[in-house]
């Protein structure tokens, strides 16, 4: 009952992780802090009154008395720049606050309500967004009249559209979450659901949007003041200073430099801060650096070879020996350790285990499709006599579909929604077997008929969404078998289906195996499904195999306490008398495996010696338990 460490997976990006960005963020934050400091204490810091004219000293360059020189009326540029900070801060705060206060509630409301409200508001927003922003601001100022505050109201209205769309977008997504449904069942009012339940989930993108808006407001304010619609002379703002500088460009080019640099630095700092915030708060963005699409195979470090070897079978198709898979960089975290099994032609091996046991990863490892960050560090995978670990990735790619094929859990997502199901099967045939378009299509229709779909010619022209889940899974099976592979990996192929459909699909697998003779690696969490379809079953727990036996032996005489626990926990096994048998605790995550026997902390039969590593016994019947010979775990005893 321990709370798991969520940090290990790296799903949650930690802020301030990379040092280079640390420095940049530090610089950005100091610049912004300085800006605010100057704005607040402008009266004290500025060496001169920004409005005091001194026409004799007009348009002078930098000097000891005037560090940044003077403008056309002899006013001190440094003082005006410092007072400009005040305008900048006021402008940014005011416009951003108006934008947030206006955009977020409306966005929340229309996103939650939908219907006509949403339709009308969104058309207005689209109209505003379709016109260049500064034009909209100018129109609003034309109505309100010029001046800083009026200009900021105009900018606030303009920028509220982006907050509105952001809030609406998040609400539209969150509204469908079950926690919102739970809140409605509790009886929370709409406004409570909006502000207490949904709003906190908007906060991260909102913060980022605020920083970006601040930058945009600063630029717009300078722009509006520059054309005389914002801050009115003689008040000092960066925009009016630029205006002046433009007018006297020929006489003193330096005038444009101080406000220009101030604007650039401030906007850059704000945007940089926004970027960093987005990366750190964003859900899992750039959490792991991908090293390449497919998993890398490393040469075997065969020295410490594991002891257990699966017995050699007649007509062996697949042989996995001592497989070890690691995640992360050296040394990495083991996901699968010491895994060995073999499958013969026409045989179905079940790989059974709960989530986190590594059963799906085993299937992907055989296909060489483990994904970024994962690699095989030990062991061998021999398919039809070829060690897959010695092949280049292009050669493995050639084997995929030809020699080994896969059927996934959810047929509606494993088929491409943009193409007809017939063309998806035909494509495999054309690519792998070089058939002509006509031949491939005919073969595809024949395959669709073979997997028990009535009217195959018509159904081949259907798109995946037009088929039921069971039909789509039949298509996926037809596609997997199109090149007559010697090994079929089926990963929870019936889990998403209704029981009556599940039965049909299991029968189909059996029929097809009788006909094509392929070996099947059947991955499932459901022991009863495994009992139906498998010849032999390998039980996995926490990344290793704990037991392997023929299907009858395993169900009638389990040797490992975990297998026995799973069997008794299945609802089919016990009578209608609670409490139902349970296995205490949870499956440990990789990295939190107990030393020695990984099941020891949940095992009722654990003894002191279970803290030492336990080897798998060899042969037909494999068990990884020190007490396997002492325990009688047969069901009903």
């Amino acid at each position, binding site marked *: *009952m321990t*709370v*798991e460490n*969520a940090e290990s997976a790296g799903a949650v990006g930690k802020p301030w992780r990379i040092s280079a960005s640390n420095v940049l963020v530090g610089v950005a934050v100091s610049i912004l802090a300085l800006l605010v400091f100057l704005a607040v204490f402008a009266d004290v810091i500025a060496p001169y009154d920004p409005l005091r004219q001194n026409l004799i000293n007009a348009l002078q360059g930098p000097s000891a008395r005037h560090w940044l020189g003077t403008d056309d009326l002899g006013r001190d540029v440094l003082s005006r720049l410092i007072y400009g900070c005040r305008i900048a801060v006021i402008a940014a705060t005011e416009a951003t606050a108006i934008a947030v206060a206006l955009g977020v509630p409306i966005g929340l409301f229309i996103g939650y309500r939908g219907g006509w409200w949403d*339709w009308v508001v969104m058309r207005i927003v689209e109209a505003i967004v379709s016109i260049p922003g500064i034009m909209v601001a100018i129109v609003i100022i034309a109505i309100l009249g010029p001046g800083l505050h009026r200009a900021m109201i105009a900018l606030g209205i303009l920028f509220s559209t982006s907050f509105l769309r952001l809030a609406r977008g998040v609400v539209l997504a969150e509204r469908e*979450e*079950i*926690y919102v*449904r*739970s*809140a*409605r*069942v*509790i*009886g*929370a009012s709409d406004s*409570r659901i909006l502000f*207490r*339940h949904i709003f*906190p*989930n908007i*906060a991260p993108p909102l913060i980022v949007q605020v920083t970006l808006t601040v930058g945009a407001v600063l630029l717009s304010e300078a722009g509006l003041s520059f054309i005389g619609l914002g801050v009115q002379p003689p008040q000092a703002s960066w925009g009016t200073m630029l205006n002046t500088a433009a007018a006297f460009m020929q006489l003193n080019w330096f005038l444009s430099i101080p406000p220009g640099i101030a604007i650039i630095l401030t906007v850059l700092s704000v945007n940089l801060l926004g970027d960093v915030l987005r990366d750190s708060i964003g859900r899992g963005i750039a959490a792991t650096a991908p090293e390449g699409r497919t998993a890398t195979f490393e040469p075997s470090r065969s020295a410490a070879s594991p002891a257990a070897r699966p017995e050699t079978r007649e007509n062996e198709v697949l042989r996995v020996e001592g497989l070890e898979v690691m995640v992360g960089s050296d040394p990495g975290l083991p996901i699968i350790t010491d895994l060995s099994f073999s499958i013969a032609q026409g045989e179905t091996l079940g790989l059974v285990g*709960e*989530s986190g046991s590594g059963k799906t990863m085993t299937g992907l490892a055989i296909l060489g499709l483990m994904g970024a960050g994962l690699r095989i560090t030990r062991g061998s995978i021999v398919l039809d006599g070829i060690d897959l670990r010695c092949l280049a990735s292009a050669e493995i790619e050639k084997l995929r579909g030809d020699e080994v094929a896969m059927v996934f859990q959810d047929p509606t997502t494993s088929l491409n929604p943009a193409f007809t199901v017939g063309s998806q099967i035909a494509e495999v045939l054309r690519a792998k077997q070089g058939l002509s378009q006509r031949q491939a299509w005919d073969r595809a229709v024949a395959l669709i008929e073979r997997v028990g779909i*009535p009217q195959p010619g018509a159904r081949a022209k259907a798109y995946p969404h037009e088929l039921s*889940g069971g039909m789509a899974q039949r298509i996926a099976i037809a596609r997997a078998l199109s090149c007559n592979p010697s090994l079929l990996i089926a990963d929870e192929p019936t889990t998403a289906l*209704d*029981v*009556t*459909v*599940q*039965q049909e699909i*299991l*029968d189909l697998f*059996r029929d097809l195996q009788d006909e094509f003779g392929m070996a099947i690696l059947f991955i499932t*969490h*459901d*022991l*009863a499904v495994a*009992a*139906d379809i498998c010849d032999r079953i390998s039980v996995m727990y926490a990344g290793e195999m704990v037991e392997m036996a023929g*299907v*009858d032996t395993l*169900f009638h005489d389990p040797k490992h306490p975990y297998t026995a*626990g*799973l*069997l008794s*926990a299945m*609802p*089919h096994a*016990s009578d*209608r008398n*609670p*409490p*139902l*048998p*349970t*296995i205490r605790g*949870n*499956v440990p995550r990789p990295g939190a495996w107990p030393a020695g026997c990984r099941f020891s902390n949940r095992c009722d039969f654990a003894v002191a010696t279970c803290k030492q590593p336990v080897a798998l016994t060899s042969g037909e019947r494999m068990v990884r338990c020190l007490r396997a010979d002492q325990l009688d775990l047969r069901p009903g005893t």
Partner: protein
Amino acid sequence: MTVRPLLEITDLSVTYWGRSLLGLRGKPFFAVKGANLAIRAGETLGLVGESGSGKSSIANTVLGLVPASSGSIRFGDHDLVAMKTRYPSEVRNQIQAVFQDPYSSLNPSMTVEGIVTEPLRVHTNMNKAERRERAIELLKLVSLQEEHLSRHPHQFSGGQRQRIAIASALALRPKLIVLDEPVSALDVSTQNQIINLLYERRDALGIAYLLIAHDLALVHHISDRIAVMYLGHIVEEGPSDRVYKNPAHPYTKALLDAVPLLDPDRQRARRESRKLQPALDTQRVADVGCPYKNRCPMAMPRCQTDMPPEYPVAGGGVANCFLLAPEVEGHHATKPSREKRIP
């Protein structure tokens, strides 16, 4: 039997309307058609059926998340359909829910304390300290500890999250909890922990459950009664043991026969018997007559045109199947079960 049920659903229909391009009403989809159900206080009713059978629609209608299009739902003295999904506080706080997916049913931005005490905040005047005390009490009810209060949902496993969801559902001491596939997203070894917990709480607190699930064996374990749905219709209802051991409706039988068994020998025997059966039309939609007529191995001419009414089943409950009609007595489906009962 004279005690009035806590929840009584009569002739309930739920219809969803598709939307056409201009936002006008499009084609109707009849999710539930003329359903009758009753749950007594402290009782568990299991509602089973395949995806699309309408079982979640019934749950959502009871919870006031979806409006009923006709029929009535009586809860205590309240007519829920007349309230049109706007339940007053005294109804809301008596009906709670636990949903399937513990990964999205808990608000990721709230702490466990916030999640568990949210119902108290909405419905009671308890102050913060009182709420916290109740939250600790609730966590203990679901075998979690006080220290978990300040954590966020992502720090827990699926089973633990479901415990938190249950604690929140228990907060207001409801009379009815709707459990919508409460364990189907969990691992086998965790499933039973949650089932046991639900069972314990039910007996200790006298709560009634409406349990929605697709796993008949599991439903059989914790339900007092089972109702089976097919294409929007309830086709059979009765005491749990009777439905599970002597199903009267051909669909219930098919459903039970399809559940894989843990015994390879019996599995094999069943496979052999399946091979002898004729292949059936897979067309599932039926507009007139019995909803199951196209897949039913025992369909009669009458099933094509008439909708079978509820017939009483020996051993308790009802089933909507003409095989149970008095006039076909002698070769109907429940006969074997009667013979069995003769000692």
